[in-house]
């Protein structure tokens, strides 16, 4: 089973394998730094469990679980 970023719990780390999303969204996520091999860590969930806050390339980004599901991990 392919693991995706939304499955990580708070404090868990991972590394990006690939972004599987429609062209526009994929481009956007990759522009923000989600490229192959980059380490990420889930920092926090929002009060209602969604969106999530992740640490990537030294900064913090929030995105929804729906987007996190498009990011496959190694």
């Amino acid at each position, binding site marked *: 089973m392919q693991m995706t970023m939304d499955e990580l719990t708070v404090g868990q780390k991972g590394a990006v394998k690939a972004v599987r999303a429609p062209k526009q969204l994929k481009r956007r996520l990759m522009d*923000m730094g989600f490229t192959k091999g980059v380490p990420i860590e889930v920092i926090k969930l929002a009060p209602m469990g969604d969106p999530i806050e992740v640490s990537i390339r030294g900064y913090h*980004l929030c995105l929804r679980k729906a987007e996190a599901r498009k990011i496959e991990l190694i």
Partner: protein
Amino acid sequence: MQTIALIGNPNSGKTTLFNTLTGTSSYVGNWPGVTVEKKEGLVNGHTILDLPGIYSLSPYSPEEKLSRRYILDKHPDLIIDVIDATNLERSLYLTTQLAELGRPLLLVLNMEDLLEREGIKIDVHRLSQMTGAPVVTISASKGTGIVELKETIETCLHEKKSALCPLFSNFVERYINHLIADDYMHAIPEGRPVRWAAIKLIEEDELFLSSMPAIPEELDGYLKNAREELIAHYDDDPEAIIIDQRYKVAEAISKDCQRKIVEKKSFNFDSIATNRVTAIPLFILIMGAVFYLSIGLVGGYTTPILENAFAFVGEKIYQVAEIYGVFPLLSGILVDGIIAGVGAVLTFVPQLFVLFLLLSILEDCGYMARIAFIMDRMMRSLGLSGKSIIPLVIGTGCSVPAIMSSRTIEHQKQRELTVIVTPFIPCGAKMPVFALMMTYFFPGQWYIAPMIYLVGVLAVVITGLLARALDKHKETNAFILELPRYQIPTVRNVWLQTKERTVGFIQKAGTIILISSVIIYLLSSFSFTFKAVDADASMLAMLGRLIAPLFAPLGFGFWQASVALLTGIAAKESIVSTLSVTVGTSHLGAFFNPASALSYMTFILLSSPCIAAISAMAKELGSRRKLLFALLWQTGFAYFSALLVRYLVLLFQ
């Protein structure tokens, strides 16, 4: 005269730098996407442009498209790439794209004052060697490094040296080299570098391809083959491969030039600001404190003082006028027109000053992006985005910047819906109207003020739910937002913003309100045959009576209320000045009762905003049909809500 473009990631401090360089006071905040329009200024006699922040030259939202179009089509003589020094790697990703444009490039490492706090050291000399561009470190907010920056700008403009293009892996480079040598490249528009174009061909960038003539068969075959080989080699599409290659370059440069000395752990405000339990109560508490401090505490103290002061001045003028036998019309214009009208509005300056001050602190410290984060889930169920909360909060000050700030919402439908609901949030200019009614009809009933905000929020919720129910596609879109570092708001930024907004309010009082007060006074003193008459027989009364019947069901079908609403289109504060001129603030009880006062307040709260906000809406919605729909919805919604409020009050009285 040469042109310089400021470009960089959102929230990297371009506008602060722009303000420092040009000595102006453009709107600054600490969330990604404060600048949504390009702004022009002068530095050393050159034109300098502040562009909306972008992460990449392949943009998503309208304001990002503006930046790309400008950089590609207008060929600035110098591109200043503003880099958040604490976020070097991701900033360099954009640099790899800017370097390819063949324009002189200057890297500005901003926020160097924060490096020490973050425990980072950057080798500036090496960064310059590796990018082939001059590098200057500054702190835009503290104003350090600016002299050196200005000198370097001159050198760059003089030397016209372009930066080094980032080199990709050999596997990619061989296709680029082949394409650069192809005859087709002669078709590239003037000023676009060949290497850049070759990469765009590999990526199949639609915007670029649409600007080029059809690709010859042979080249097309080559490109198809190249893309297939790339996909096979990297197991990804060409666009993704190029992004990956760029980030590899950015990583390499960043690794080589940057050292993390210590991993500093400090208290993080986010441990309560975005904590699952405390986040939402804290948000409510902060907003409550903002309103309590400005409207409750400061307003409660200063409003009566100023009211008495204006009344005193008015009385004195009347006395003096009588002694010297001044023409009564003149003293009437002065006292019952200008002092009553303008004074009623100026009374609110102290509390609005505090409101603007607190809002700009909120905007500057980095909390706004957190609100978007914690509220996204809730906003989504209303067909909005977490980012919609930013316009709603700013809207408590003024709807105009609020409506403009909706531009960072990528999804068109959510953006338009945000634009339509933002004016439901009572702005500072509506405050005087509510205060006037509340002090007269509901003295000491503190719960009315929060209720007004609640009704505004309810209007947002109902509109959102309806829009979502009617939306057949139920499409959701991405929500991707950087959470900026918290910072202590700079006195300069906070002061500039607060001053600008407060001065704007006072200026309105001195212009629009002043003129409309005089006109209203004259129109209410004369008949159509220019005879001095009682207000009831005046021109204004005649005009007001044309539309007054429309409002009879709401309980305020008299001409004064209608005229006030009309003048409210120019500026909402005008409602107060018009009422004080035509009715007199102490005679409100002769016209309104508690039920109709509440319905009047509700109508003002929810109906179409002032002309400035309407034109902001027009701009963001971009179509007359949508604007008309928005205005009809707001006014219709206001009408029925006011009706409902009136009958509810009558029912329970």
